[in-house]
Every structure is written in structure tokens, then in C-alpha cells.
């Protein structure tokens, strides 16, 4: 019986809060992909549960309202401890339980009210903790310039975050202006691919296992070399070839190196231009436009025709 009660208490007070924390504080979970040691895991789990537990315990003693609502029970402290003593004695001894049947059930009913009240406040504190961690992680890009944030949340909570989360997402940038992440990936068989990062995958040890790319293009290196050797001055932009298909998975063991670029959205560049021109105080009413460059997916330049397109496919 003791084992059942202990398991139930452990589940409600430790495992369920930790599970909810890991599930709901999504941003935090995503960036902690690197494996932890057993001791770190223990400390992390304990700190997740300890904060709301201590908050509920302290507040229920400090404020009468928290200590008596919800599930109110008009009972003094000595009677409360007597109830816990009765319930514990009954758990330990079957004989005591049989001899004090009515007293035990009455104590259990009181304890249930106390525990439900405590759990209500503890889970409320847990929800606040999850929300705080979520927001502190989500706004990492904006908050990380503050020394207090760096020393506290940044160092303690995110100290073991995966470097790939920082490199392959806009995590490090302010939430309102996260850039799109584009990569040029040179493979071990000397192919150069360019695309935007849709997702990335990690191995159990936290190392990169692969990249999912969108808007993928491949550089026609052989054609470029042929044209160069024939005396032309090839425009490299013209040698990119679109690869049909929505998703392109690139295994990490095929990647020789990655050039990672953070591409700012055109509307944000336009806003930067407007802000800069407005700050000049020209004294003349004006409008500002940013006419974007033609895309590099333009038709093949420098005499390279579609007839030879399949050469290095």
C-alpha cells in the first residue's frame, strides 16, 4: 500500500510536472538537444519541479487565502498534522488501520482536500514557470544583449543548447525579425547545393544527422569549368539549376562544408531604408522604394544553352 501511495505522489509531484514542462515549454526543449549527463538531468528535473513546489509551499504559509482556498477546510495546524499521523500509521500498520477505521477515512478525506489545494497552487506556479521559460527562450534574440539575462537564464538554462539550433534557425535573432536561413552545402562528392533550411535533424549525441532543404538548386560545376576553360568569363549566377521537388534531404555525412546565410525579408530591408532616409531630414516630402535585384535563377547566361543542360546532372 505504501508503494502505491508513494508512486502516486511521485507521479503527481515530480514526473507529471516535469513531463508537462518538457512538453509545453516547447522552445526550451527544442534548443536543449545535446545530451546531458545523469547528474545534470537530475538537477534539471529537480529544479523544474522544485520551483513551483516551493512557491506553493511558501505562498500557502504566507497568505491565508492561498492556504485555505480552493477546497476550504476549517481545521487548525495541530489537527492537520494529527490527520497526517493517523493516515501514515494506517499505511504502515494494518492493525492500526483496522482499529481506527473511521478516524483513518476521516483523516484521508481531510488530507485529500489539503493536497488538492496544494496541487492547485503548485500546478498554477508550474504553468507560470512554463510560460516564463517559454517567453524567455522565445525572446532570446532580444534579451540576450542584457547582462542580467546572460548571467542568469542564458547561462543556466541555455548553456547546453544545441549549437545547430543557433546556427540553422533564426533563434539568435529578435523574434520580430528572424531571418530565413539559407545554406550553400558542398558535398563530399564535390556537388554544391543551395537552399533554405526547412528543418534539421540531430543524432543521439547532439551532432547533425541531416538537413531538410527547400528551394534547392545545384551548381553546375562541370559546365562552369568547361566554359571557363574555353576562354569564357562565366557568370556564376547563371550556372545554378533548380532541383524539382518540394523537399531535399541532405545527410550530414555527405556534407563537406556549409556556408550559412541569414537572409533578411525584403519588407524589413525596405523599412531599414525608410528609417535611414527619414533620419536625414531632407526637408522635402519623399517616398522611398527598394527595387530588388533580379533573382539569380535567371536563364543560363554567357552562351550556355539548354541543349547541354544535362551534362553534369
Amino acid at each position: 500500500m505504501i508503494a502505491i501511495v508513494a508512486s502516486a505522489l511521485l507521479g503527481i509531484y515530480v514526473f507529471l510536472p516535469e513531463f508537462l514542462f518538457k512538453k509545453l515549454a516547447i522552445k526550451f526543449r527544442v534548443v536543449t538537444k545535446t545530451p546531458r549527463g545523469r547528474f545534470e538531468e537530475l538537477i534539471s528535473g529537480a529544479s523544474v519541479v522544485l520551483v513551483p513546489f516551493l512557491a506553493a509551499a511558501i505562498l500557502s504559509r504566507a497568505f491565508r487565502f492561498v492556504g485555505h482556498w480552493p477546497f476550504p477546510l476549517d481545521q487548525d495546524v495541530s489537527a492537520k498534522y494529527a490527520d497526517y499521523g493517523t493516515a501514515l500509521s494506517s499505511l504502515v500498520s494494518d492493525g492500526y488501520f483496522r482499529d481506527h477505521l473511521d478516524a483513518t477515512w476521516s483523516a484521508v478525506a481531510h488530507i485529500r482536500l489539503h493536497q488538492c489545494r496544494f496541487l492547485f497552487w503548485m500546478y498554477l506556479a508550474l504553468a507560470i514557470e512554463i510560460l516564463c521559460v517559454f517567453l524567455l527562450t522565445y525572446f532570446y534574440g532580444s534579451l540576450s544583449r542584457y547582462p542580467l539575462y546572460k548571467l542568469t537564464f542564458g547561462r543556466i538554462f541555455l548553456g547546453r543548447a544545441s549549437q545547430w539550433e543557433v546556427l540553422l534557425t533564426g533563434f539568435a535573432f529578435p523574434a520580430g525579425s528572424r531571418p530565413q536561413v539559407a545554406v550553400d552545402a558542398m558535398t563530399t562528392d564535390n556537388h554544391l547545393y543551395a537552399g533554405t533550411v526547412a528543418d534539421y535533424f540531430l543524432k543521439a549525441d547532439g551532432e547533425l544527422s541531416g538537413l531538410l532543404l527547400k528551394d534547392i538548386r545545384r551548381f553546375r560545376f562541370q559546365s562552369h569549368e568547361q566554359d571557363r576553360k574555353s576562354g569564357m568569363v562565366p557568370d556564376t549566377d547563371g550556372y545554378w539549376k533548380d532541383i524539382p521537388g518540394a523537399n531535399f534531404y541532405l545527410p550530414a555525412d555527405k556534407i563537406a562544408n556549409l556556408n550559412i546565410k541569414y537572409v533578411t525579408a525584403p519588407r524589413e530591408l525596405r523599412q531599414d531604408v525608410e528609417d535611414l532616409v527619414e533620419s536625414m531630414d531632407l526637408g522635402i516630402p519623399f517616398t522611398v522604394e527598394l527595387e530588388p535585384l533580379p533573382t539569380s535563377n535567371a536563364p543560363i547566361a554567357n552562351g550556355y544553352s539548354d541543349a547541354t543542360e544535362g551534362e553534369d546532372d
Partner: protein
Amino acid sequence: MTNDILRLSEALTRDTERSQFRDTLARNLASNSDKIRASLRQSGEYRISTTKGDVVIRSKQKVA
């Protein structure tokens, strides 16, 4: 493996393509401010070529 994402993210956000673009454009605008004013009064338009395309400033006033 210990990752210091604070240092990594600082390095990534310190000198971005966007900040380079902004700094270059700010320098260009500052050094050509007189030319821009004159051009807006005369032709109603001033054009600056950047790595992200042409920035076109157009006067809303009627050109003399």
C-alpha cells in the same frame, strides 16, 4: 561537448548581411546628403545602387 550559445549567437548577430547593408547605406546617404537634396529638387529622384538592389528616393513635390 560544451556549447556556449551566448558567444555563438553574439558572433552570428554582430556582423550580419543586414547590418552591413544598413551601415553602407547610412554612410552613402550621409556623404551624399547635399547631392540627394539637389537631385530631388531638380529631377525629383535620386537612385543609389546597393547589394540588395536600387534604393530610389522620389520627391513628392512637383519638380521645378
